[in-house]
């Protein structure tokens, strides 16, 4: 057991820090073109798709270097390394694993160059957590498939150019995991209609998508017909360590402590209230548990030991932290905590009141806490499925 980094890893961390110092001006000094320049520079560094194989334009980055890169970037509150979060997280890896040579050539460079943003067409009106029960239909008709059906709560759909779409090509199957087929579909294809949905925080991040007689060429199928579930499961398994999340949560905890130090409860400093102190300590413990769980799982990966679904452990911690930290902050601030950005008394420019309404983005997306509990009980503890 040792928590030291090798000289190579340390010099990589230094390289990332110097890059940030040179290329990331304070927020107020960032001009209109900042993001574009930033994306070009991190791309030139090979830090977009850092872990991807070199043949696809990645850097073959090791697990520890990835963790260092994520940690330093989120410590500096840097913009993301590439604009297509989903493209980088699972669409790209899915294409590299299951795609044809043409698909690899067509889609991978645009993800790395932040030219194309992807969204993920999984959930349907009647099938969210029960993902494999999807009904959106695709029928082979000569050189193309005809897609009819509906997706919903598709994050990023209002501004994405492409969607990775799960459909059902066979309805006569004994297992619902069979008969599913995955497609890569342009959002401007005729018959695709996007209707943004406003969430409770007032944002329009997700949408319903209607597919009416949409023609998808056979060459846009990802993997074989009926193999869609396998493609999806292996794509989702590409989610990496939670190191970046931990540094973000630590930064949020620091802000929360500052708020506590500047707050009063019944006229007395809030930082002297035992309940408040212990609540903040509980957050700190959970974040540390995420950090050391993450490092244990990272070590397992490096040693080549199989990971089952241990990342669900940290997902559950993150879910409770995302819900509880903002909630604690607005409760601490009383009526002022309720004010949104722009209010005279709004606390920290309304970031806590916004956060108290925004947690489902992280908590529900990618599998609800109860789904994570099912995963742990069934895949790790071996309990029978429902």
């Amino acid at each position: 057991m040792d928590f030291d980094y090798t000289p190579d890893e340390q010099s990589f961390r230094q390289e990332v820090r110097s890059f940030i110092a040179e290329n990331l001006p304070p927020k107020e000094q960032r001009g209109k073109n900042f993001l574009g320049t930033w994306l070009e520079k991190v791309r030139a560094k090979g830090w977009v798709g850092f872990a991807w194989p070199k043949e696809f334009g990645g850097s073959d980055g090791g697990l520890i270097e990835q963790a260092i890169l994520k940690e330093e970037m989120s410590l500096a509150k840097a913009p993301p390394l590439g604009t297509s979060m989903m493209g980088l997280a699972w669409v790209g890896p899915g294409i590299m694993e299951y795609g044809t040579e043409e698909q690899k050539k067509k889609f991978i460079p645009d993800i790395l160059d932040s030219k194309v943003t992807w969204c993920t067409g999984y959930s349907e009106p009647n099938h969210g957590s029960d993902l494999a029960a999807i009904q959106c239909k695709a029928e082979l008709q000569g050189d193309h498939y005809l897609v009819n059906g509906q997706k919903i709560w598709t994050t990023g759909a209002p501004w994405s150019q492409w969607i990775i779409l799960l459909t059902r090509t066979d309805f006569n199957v004994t297992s619902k995991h069979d008969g599913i087929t995955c497609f890569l579909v342009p959002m401007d294809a005729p018959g695709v209609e996007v209707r943004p949905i406003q969430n409770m925080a007032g944002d329009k991040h997700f949408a319903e998508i209607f597919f009416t007689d949409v023609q998808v060429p056979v060459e846009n199928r990802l993997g074989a017909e009926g193999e869609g579930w396998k493609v999806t499961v292996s794509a989702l398994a590409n989610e990496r360590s939670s190191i970046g999340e931990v540094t973000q949560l630590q930064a949020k905890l620091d802000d929360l402590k500052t708020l506590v130090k500047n707050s009063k409860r019944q006229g007395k400093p809030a930082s002297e209230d035992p309940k408040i102190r212990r609540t903040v300590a509980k957050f700190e413990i959970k974040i540390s548990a995420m950090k050391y769980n993450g490092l244990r799982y990272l070590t397992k990966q490096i040693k080549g030991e199989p990971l089952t679904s241990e990342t669900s452990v940290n997902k559950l911690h993150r879910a409770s932290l995302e819900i509880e930290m903002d909630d604690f902050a607005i409760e601490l601030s009383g009526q002022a905590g309720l004010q949104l950005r722009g209010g005279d008394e709004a606390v920290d420019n309304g970031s806590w009141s916004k956060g108290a309404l925004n947690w489902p983005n992280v908590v529900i997306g990618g599998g609800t806490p109860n789904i994570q509990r099912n995963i742990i009980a069934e895949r790790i503890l071996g309990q029978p499925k429902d």
Partner: protein
Amino acid sequence: MNFGFTEEQNLLKDQVQRFMKEACPMNRVREISKSDSTFDQALWQQTAELGWLGLTIPENFGGLGLKWIDLIVVLEAAAEGLGPLPIASQALASTAILACASEEQKASWLPAMASGEAVVTLGLYDEANWIDPAAVTASAKSTDDGFVLQGKKPFVNDALAANYLLLAVQGPNGLALAAVGKDQVTVTAQPTIDNTNPMASVDIDGVEISASDLLPMSDEQLAFLTDCGGVATTAEMVGAGTAILAMTNGYAKERIQFGKPIGQYQGVKHRLADMFVDLESYRSLCYFAAWAVYDSPEELAKAVSMAKGYASDAFAQIGIDGVGLHGAIGFTADYDAQLYLKRSKWARPMYGDSDYHMDRIATLGGL
């Protein structure tokens, strides 16, 4: 960066688990707990021969010269079977000797502790639920040729098994550890919720000791020993938590109600998942704290408070859920689940409950 155990540590874990299964299965644990001494000398000698009592004692004093991260491998694995062996107390006592004694005293104490010949325990605080130098109320007063002890140590773990005791007192020049033989003091067993982990009071009133048997101890050394106690207890909570989760998880797969294994119901499987999440989390925090004892002492206080602060309440809940998910069988004296619930109650206040540790995290974190 490597947050995993070495091949040697994994082998040590296997060795302890095998030993517990073969030499000290649960029926033997129950027998030993009911005996007058609550101690099995033959079993103790075996652990000494396996080297477990000298793990953290330097080689020049007859030990193996390893670290606390190696020691907790033994504590965790032995606690899976609720091993009634005072290994943690012995390790804490040797850590106290290393911290507070002269080289000469180390040479006279440590080899006998590594060989198991001396069974030594450590008694720190005299007030329930108070971790502070002021919670040491027993004292030592100077006499012509040494010291006379005053007061009582009400909460000393493994005092019945020990033949020597290191007891914190207020000395003439501040805190100190009084080294006394069992035959000098009056040890009275105190029944607790958990009879696999015996506690006793030690009456030291009027006991005279020689000048060299009072080891000076700074406030920082007391805090360090308390933190080591927290690491040892949390490691045992990891082991005991692992065992009760495995027992409950197995039962949920086999117990059929309403035509299905109860583990198929989300009311059951989600509790099991939450038990797993908590156990995994305080396990990670515990390993880090154990590593910090030697390799990052400046991080130790916070690391221990994270681990024990999480484990105190989490393991208590795991004990309750372990028994509760079993239904009436879990409540049955002949069934082992209830022994782990008792251990969770025992561990909760040891070396600081969750409130103590969370308060300390808040302070160390700048609040």
